[in-house]
């Protein structure tokens, strides 16, 4: 009885998943043949460079037209880092590690300067070429992770202290909010950089597009420090 019951439950689960898959197939068939005009996208494509001054349209949507959603996402990273560092014990710094050979140490010493330059290039030129604050921040977070894996956690916490990392994360978050308040002091809405008529400059140069390069820098610092702090907390629990 129980063996037949187990086989029946297995086939029941597979059948349910297949039935829901065919149901979703019919919905996608109707989504594909919709032919509505997208008015908002056409407005952003034709008027975006003139109103904001940034060539990269995704950056102008993410930091100027919908800047409030970026603030919400920065809050998500802050909450995750705070939750994880609350759950780790304070004194125990044991970590599984071993002594590596000289090939690995020399390769890491050669690669780290290139990682710094690549990260800073993606952050600063975020409004001219593809990139932005988030990608640059993730690459900058790789450097403390590499040092922690190879040299052990005691050495890594001696050189790059956790207090400095949480200070950088705080600077990133509060800097973003203060730059948003600058829009209120100029007489317009919160986080407004094209509406408040800041100096827009020529599109295509480094210093242009009002507030957007500085917002990129703050988000890059915040994401980098937050991800490095998350990794160190996860390693310390073992």
């Amino acid at each position, binding site marked *: 009885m129980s063996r037949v019951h187990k086989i029946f439950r297995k086939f029941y689960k597979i059948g349910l998943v297949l039935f829901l*898959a065919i149901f*979703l197939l019919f919905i*996608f068939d109707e989504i*594909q043949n919709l032919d509505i005009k997208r008015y908002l996208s056409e407005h952003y494509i034709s008027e975006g460079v003139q109103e904001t001054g940034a060539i990269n349209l*995704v950056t102008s*949507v993410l930091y100027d037209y919908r800047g409030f959603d970026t603030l919400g996402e920065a809050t998500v*990273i802050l909450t995750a880092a705070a939750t994880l560092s609350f*759950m780790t014990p304070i004194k125990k710094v044991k970590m599984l590690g071993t002594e590596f050979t000289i090939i690995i140490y020399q390769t890491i010493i050669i690669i780290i300067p290139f990682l710094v330059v690549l990260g800073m290039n993606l952050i600063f030129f975020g409004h001219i070429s593809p990139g932005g604050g988030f990608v640059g921040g993730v690459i900058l977070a790789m450097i403390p992770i590499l040092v922690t894996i190879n040299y052990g956690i005691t050495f890594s916490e001696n050189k790059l202290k956790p207090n400095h990392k949480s200070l950088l994360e705080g600077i990133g978050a509060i800097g973003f909010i203060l730059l948003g308040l600058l829009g209120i002091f100029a007489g317009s809405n919160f986080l407004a950089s094209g509406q408040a008529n800041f100096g827009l400059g020529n599109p295509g140069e480094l210093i242009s597009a009002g507030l957007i390069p500085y917002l990129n820098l703050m988000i890059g610092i915040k*994401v980098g420090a937050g991800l490095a702090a998350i990794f160190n907390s996860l390693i310390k629990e073992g």
Partner: protein
Amino acid sequence: MELPYVVVIILFYLGIYTIIMNKNLIKIVVGVNIVESSLILLLILISFKLGGTAPILDRKYELVVDPIPQALALTAIVIGGSLIAVMLALVIKIYKRYGTLNVDEIRKLRG
């Protein structure tokens, strides 16, 4: 019915199948990650136009791809990463308390 939409459906239901049928906690976390990836692929597929270029206007182009869902996908990637980090920390705490990673045995021992 084009091919990328079918791939989205296959990935989504492979992820849900992994969450339902497995007994190991870490494989369930991997399943959640697969479902997340399929939804980000769906967001990018909505904004596609045949023959369009990327939305970076250094010259004058005729047909440019929609930039709004791409910004939403960027947000979704970061949020998915933070979710997996918190889940893994909770899995470590469960292992230290109960000593096993099997879902059936954890359900039996309560306290």
